[in-house]
């Protein structure tokens, strides 16, 4: 069994050997004036299909799935109903949850959560690293907590949080200002550019273009750079969603993360 490396270069060697072994009476061709440039092709991404399965509906009638991402120490719970219609709620700590989301507060009180994001029919929890249980065990325990909270009628957001929500135009203006004055000038050295596509409720949708598209460090730029700048100027911002097709990036700044940069 040979690797792709030997397959490629052995093939090249065979082609070179064949060319040097040509008979002497073969007419010598004129060198071509210009070698043809290789055709640049677009790399397409097909939609990923989900497995068809019937969701298990437990006693109590609330079906909850948990998507477990060990690399990010994150569990995303997917509910069979809307938790928060039209808005999203970001809780970076327990105090924020106390002021904005009783459902997120139930997660913090169960222990182990660093951040909670409630968005549409999902609730994402990133752990604080203090727990000893596996992420799957944590997800199962929290699933029970969330089901009980929903059965008890615990709200995903407080009335005060929703009542004090700025308009979409206000949030859009705040974010655009920080993109123009801080973010895009900062990432221009990597040929990157951030575009704010739209704001729906208090959820922002962006595209990462240029050197950011397909860049291995784009998630770090999003999390540590863009998101923290956005939240500093728009504290009521909920989910921040990246709509970039990173697989189609043609000139990413990093194709692999540099040494010392975590995934």
């Amino acid at each position, binding site marked *: 069994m040979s690797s792709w490396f030997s397959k490629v270069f052995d093939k090249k060697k065979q082609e070179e050997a064949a060319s040097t072994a040509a008979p002497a009476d073969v007419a010598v061709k004129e060198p071509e004036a210009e070698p043809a440039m290789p055709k640049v092709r677009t*790399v397409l991404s097909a939609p990923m299909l989900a497995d068809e399965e019937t969701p298990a509906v437990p006693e109590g009638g609330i079906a909850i799935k948990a998507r477990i991402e060990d690399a990010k120490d994150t569990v995303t719970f997917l509910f069979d109903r809307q938790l928060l219609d039209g808005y999203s709620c970001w809780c970076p700590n327990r105090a924020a949850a106390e002021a904005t989301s009783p459902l997120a507060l139930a997660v913090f009180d169960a222990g182990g959560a660093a951040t909670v994001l409630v968005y549409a029919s999902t609730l994402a929890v990133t752990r604080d690293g203090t727990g000893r249980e596996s992420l799957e065990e944590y997800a199962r325990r929290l699933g029970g907590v969330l089901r009980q909270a929903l059965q008890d009628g615990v709200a995903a957001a407080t009335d005060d949080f929703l009542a004090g929500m700025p308009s979409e135009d206000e949030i859009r203006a705040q974010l655009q200002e920080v993109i123009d004055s801080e973010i895009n000038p900062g990432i221009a050295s990597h040929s990157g550019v951030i575009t704010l596509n739209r704001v729906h409720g208090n959820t922002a949708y962006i595209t990462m273009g240029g050197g950011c598209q397909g860049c291995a460090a784009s998630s770090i730029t999003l999390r540590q750079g863009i998101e923290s700048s956005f939240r500093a100027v728009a504290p009521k911002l909920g989910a921040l969603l990246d709509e970039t097709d990173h697989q189609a990036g043609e000139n990413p700044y990093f194709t692999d993360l540099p040494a010392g940069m975590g995934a």
Partner: protein
Amino acid sequence: MPRLESFDMKIKTGERGPNKAPSYEINGFKLDFDEMAGGNGPGETLELSGEPQSFPHSLVLIGPEDGAWDIAEVQLTYQVMGGPPYTVRLGAVTLDGESNLNIWYDRPPKVIDV
């Protein structure tokens, strides 16, 4: 990024198919598939396998030089070093002489009922 030992592909062709063996590219190097069965004419199913034994920064199926290839569905099964095999399924896409199809996907996150 895990080391990709080998991968199997099953491609179901839709209305238009090149009826010609495809190739793939890993990290910009073009390779032939190690095994092929079936066909990629209209309505046919083609089964392919490749053994790159490398770290795939990019892995693409090369579109046909002439004409279009309507792919109805793709099933990819990866054998990676240090982990069990995993499968992803992709939906419809059309390839031609100016396009390739991304066929490298990390292991999907585990989803459980809780």
